[in-house]
């Protein structure tokens, strides 16, 4: 009954405004000063900062959402410190916002109600590498590239690659994905265990302390409850990750197509042929044009696929030839491929620089990336309808996508000082999300709900699922201190 009543509280926006904990704390009031001295008694003077520059740095990420600085930033060095600091925040009803690398794309770190930002970068150890078991446990300060550099002489790597050099625990919090997902999966498939500190300081091991079996059917899947919870259920202080062997050989390829349909058809057939393709990326004609101009290239200005194959040196030839045949049968042309690292880099440079190439289309503007994902068979239709929408609304939105997953991004280039354009982009992204939902898809394939997609989440999963989510939130964080205002 209590749970139900608590769940009801969160569904009414008016009630939220009335509750005391939504008052924005100012660093000058006595209450926060008392808290600061308590925080300092745990983390020391160097571990607690109220400096404006530090707070602003921790109030923004790489999204277009404006900076919302917290009142205090703390830098814990161990899970015991995190727990002690959380207890203090819990006692004083202060919001808690976990911060990894600040590379998120949905405004997840903005301190909407002030509070304490937990910057976890000092907890930066790689713990417990088990090479023969293909698993490793890392703290939140370890980034994706940092881990792969650490692993470089073991022959192992962690392939989930969202582009940015993000904190791995942060990637778990947002259920990140990347260009490799078609072969290696997303964070959901690759997190074996989490150590999480809840709002009241309780330290929870989602699969049991130290456990790392490759599979389990023991009890409710708490690990995947926290994966993708975007800091609203707890602070992730350790992640146990599944590792893979670095493939013996990598080959990259590029191919142009006369239409979106032919590119997607090729993708489906490549997957059906059992080619263990590692990356299959789609760039539309607008994006290719931008890339040509940015990098002085001369790709044909038409839908293009960028592919990457991983495997033994012997299997490379077979994979490439099967793929080349499929693309040719679908009208593909200019199939080019490369094996050594420098040539592969040149071939893929267009895809790697896509973001900057898009920005260069309109210097002085900012970029915002949409993130819908639909079943692959619906991809041609949604891309065609989306391009029509862009043209009829006079918007700049080159498209790049992980077509093997049915996920694509429109990189909306807009002038943030033009309110009309901002409004048009906003409406466009809502239409796009609803278009994807109407095709059995999702409003966010990789970036998360964060600040801006909460209404879309409700449309996507339905009010009943939202109530269940709120019930879970109320159980784990009854005071709503964990990253309030996000996801739900």
């Amino acid at each position, binding site marked *: 009954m209590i749970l139900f009543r608590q769940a009801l509280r969160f569904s009414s926006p008016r009630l939220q405004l009335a509750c005391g904990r939504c008052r924005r704390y100012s660093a000058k009031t006595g209450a926060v000063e008392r808290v600061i001295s308590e925080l300092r008694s745990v983390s020391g003077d160097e571990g607690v900062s109220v400096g404006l520059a530090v707070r602003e740095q921790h109030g923004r990420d790489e999204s277009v959402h404006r900076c919302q600085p917290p009142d205090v930033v703390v830098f814990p060095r161990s899970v015991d410190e995190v727990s002690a600091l959380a207890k203090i925040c819990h006692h004083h009803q202060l919001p808690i916002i976990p911060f990894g690398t600040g590379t998120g794309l949905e405004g997840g770190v903005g301190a909407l109600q002030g509070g304490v930002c937990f910057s976890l970068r000092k907890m930066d150890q790689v713990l417990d590498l088990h090479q023969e078991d293909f698993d490793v446990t890392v703290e939140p300060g370890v980034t994706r590239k*940092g881990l792969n*550099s*650490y692993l*470089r*002489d*073991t*022959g*192992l*790597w962690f392939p989930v690659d969202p582009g940015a050099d993000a904190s791995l625990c942060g990637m778990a919090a947002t259920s990140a994905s990347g260009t490799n997902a078609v072969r290696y999966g997303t964070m959901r498939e690759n997190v074996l265990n989490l150590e999480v500190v809840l709002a009241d300081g309780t330290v929870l091991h989602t699969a049991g302390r130290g456990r790392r079996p490759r599979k389990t059917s023991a009890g409710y899947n708490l690990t995947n409850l926290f994966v993708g919870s975007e800091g609203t259920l707890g602070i992730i202080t350790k992640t146990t990750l599944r590792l893979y*062997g*670095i*493939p*013996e050989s990598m080959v990259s390829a590029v191919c142009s197509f006369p239409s979106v349909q032919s590119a997607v058809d090729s993708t489906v057939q490549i997957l059906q042929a059992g080619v263990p393709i590692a990356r299959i990326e789609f760039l539309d004609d607008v994006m290719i044009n931008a890339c040509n101009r940015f990098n002085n290239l001369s790709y044909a200005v038409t839908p293009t696929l960028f592919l990457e194959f991983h495997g*033994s040196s012997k299997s490379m030839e077979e994979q490439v030839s099967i793929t080349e045949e499929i693309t040719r049968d679908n009208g593909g042309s200019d199939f080019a491929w490369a094996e050594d*690292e*420098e040539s592969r880099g040149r071939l893929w440079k267009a895809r790697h620089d896509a973001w900057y190439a898009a920005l260069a289309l309109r210097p002085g503007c900012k970029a915002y990336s949409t993130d819908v994902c639909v079943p692959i068979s619906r991809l041609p239709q949604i891309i065609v309808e989306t391009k029509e929408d862009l043209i009829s609304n006079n918007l700049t939105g080159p498209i790049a996508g992980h077509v093997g997953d049915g996920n694509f991004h429109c990189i909306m280039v807009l002038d943030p000082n033009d309110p009309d354009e901002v409004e048009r982009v906003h409406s466009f992204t809502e239409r796009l999300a609803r278009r994807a939902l109407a095709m059995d898809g999702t409003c966010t394939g990789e970036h998360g709900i964060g600040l801006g997609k909460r209404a879309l989440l409700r449309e996507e999963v339905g009010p009943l699922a939202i109530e269940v989510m709120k019930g879970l939130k109320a159980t784990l964080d009854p005071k709503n201190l964990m990253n309030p205002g996000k996801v739900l």
Partner: protein
Amino acid sequence: MSARVLVGVKRVIDYAVKIRVRPDHTGVVTDGVKHSMNPFCEIAVEEAVRLKEKKLVKEIVAVSCGPQQVQETIRTALAMGADRGIHVEVSGKDYDALGPLQVSKIMAALAKKEEADLIILGKQAIDDDCNQTGQMTAALLDWPQGTFASELTLEGGMLKVVREIDGGLETIKIKMPAVVTADLRLNTPRYATLPNIMKAKKKKIANVKPADLGVDVTSRLEVLKVDEPPQRQAGVKVETVEDLVVKLKEAGRI
């Protein structure tokens, strides 16, 4: 081409580790600290492997001097593509005191024994930053040297080396046999893949003692003390130029 290449690989504390001085100030903490191949040695191995892939070189021999643990470093070189390894056993106080002069004597002796045509080393190690072993090895063998190489090409028994120097780039042509030391931009080393690490377990590593090569590893250097660099003091903000001048005079700077 039947050229044999000798590549030196040094086991050092990993570049990402935060170094701490031992409490007794005799050195840095190495116990339980992650070690890996010196990054410039990785570049050297990569260059040798590329020469072999271009069929300009027939055999790559990876060499490391130190205790049992350096075998891991040799194994990494084997996984990257070296054919066999040589572990020169040096341990205890001798290993702590091991420096470029002794290593270059060992490399010179091995180069003669293995009839090497080319020695590729990293330009320096990231723990001592000596930047001496390559040059000393060349001098002991009376071989030409191409140091700080950012580009290496074989042209009919001669080596064309583009060197990174203070003023820019210098291109030289040297006869083989020669010593080359690898600089940062020579190449991007490959990661050792898991299948190659497994295959490397079958490659041979020979054990050799410095005495077998006629080399005396006693050092003529004695480390007196190791200290951390002084902590950076907080700065002082002043309001006017006059205040700045006064403060600089007080500090004896002007």
